[in-house]
């Protein structure tokens, strides 16, 4: 198959409905100097592309577009790299079809 062109996941998320709980992120990355390999991995495999490396080389999460799948929790919560909860009731992604 031809070389994969980069997919813009933001365009996909744009089709979804969200009710963002402003100022109350439901996923929080623990402060770190150097990110663990799991955190770096999440910049690639989070299906909503919520994780990104910042200018200082640390991994940040912005869970506004989060699909609440739990992948990052399964991979990284155990090591203490992040805390993970569901958004407050009613907030977060709202699937119209699911």
């Amino acid at each position, binding site marked *: 198959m031809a070389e994969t062109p980069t*997919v813009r996941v933001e365009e996909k*998320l744009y089709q*979804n409905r969200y009710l963002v709980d402003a100022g109350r992120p439901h996923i929080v990355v623990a402060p770190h100097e150097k990110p663990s390999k799991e955190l770096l991995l999440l910049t690639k495999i989070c*299906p909503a592309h919520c994780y990104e490396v910042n200018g200082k080389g640390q991994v940040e999460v912005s869970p506004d577009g989060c699909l609440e799948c739990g992948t990052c*929790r399964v991979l990284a919560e155990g090591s203490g790299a992040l805390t993970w909860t569901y958004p407050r009731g009613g907030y977060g*992604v709202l699937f*119209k079809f*699911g």
Partner: protein
Amino acid sequence: MPAEKFDVIVVGAGPAGNSCAYTLAKRGLKVLQIERGEYPGSKNVQGAIMYANMLEKIIPDFRDDAPLERHLIEQRLWYMDDSSYTGVHYRSDDFNEEAPNRYTIIRAQFDKWFSKKVQQAGALLILETTVTDLCFSGGKVIGVKTDRAGGTILADVVVMAEGVNGVLGTKAGLRPRPKPDTVALAVKEMHFLPSDVIESRFNISGDEGVVIEAAGTITKGMTGTGFLYTNKESISIGIGCLVSDFAHTGKAPYELLEDFKKHPAVAPLIAGAEVKEYAAHLIPEGGYNAVPQLFGEGWVIVGDAGQFVNAVHREGSNLAMTTGRIAAEAIFQIKSRKDKFSAENLSIYQKMLEQSFVMKDLKKYKRLPDFMHGARDRLFGSYPELVSKAAQNWFRVDGKDKKSKEKEIVRSFVKARGVRGLASDAWKLARSWR
């Protein structure tokens, strides 16, 4: 928040929670159901094929008003490499029966419908409320705490129908967190097309529907599958692989989906569609060995939270409905004899499960996850290409005699894997299939 005490609190309004709450409310128990979504289904993702038999056991006349998309008359299994597929198709007019066996559904609509039935049966539903903690007294679960003001809500027994992540159970120390190799991450899109376009592309009419399940190099060597299901006016398309395999390869799930959509066999089926939603969800794939402890003092676990998915047959919602119903029957038995919801008494839930198709099926395939994992490079890498080349060699008419063609095909397999390797894969597959 209601101040009174309930017989049962059910956490979650997916198929497991709804089946459980419905069965209990019908029998007159005082049931509170709590769901974090704005409406039931707003957090839920499925392919989605719904199996009639398991719902019939709960709501026999569901066909009268349930939102059903198409009944399935054709199943395609595709083994794909990058440019082809080798497949088995089964189509039968017998599936155009009075009471069809399988339907496609749209979960947000189906869950809303099911939840309405639960409420009509007499259960109290609170939406937009996340259960944050289980409450204990002397080692026994006595209720739940939510993210709303009002403190603890009490009940004799709490049913965790909270889905694959099992956050509550983990937080309370009743079960482990799912592991990367026991859950698959699936991404899915909804592609809208006029119904007549879908019908002509899939060679169907009326409410008939087609299912395609696909495996092969589409998952780039990872353990996983793709799917494409026809709804009335949309096509559900998705792909999923074990989280541990995503972690191993670092592949982006949405790129996998884009490549699957571009496959020459898939692209024409969805061409020109309008995409209206992108979703992701985990699927429990650990099978029998990954099932956690299912009951204890004042609590039980049902549905995906208990890893009740048969990955081979792509069944999950039906196991969710069945475990929800069985848990309700167990609870009802204990309640009717005015007994305590102790772990000992609740163990009848486990016993009833063992006697049902749920545990029998999970047991049958208990070796399969290990086999799939061990052979993944071949199953999702070299074999699909070999199968495709063999088929192409066989079907191309090029002046070569058939006997030589046969020899070449056998040689290509032996060269890739060795006679012992092939035999060992076949043996392990047969063993894990028993």
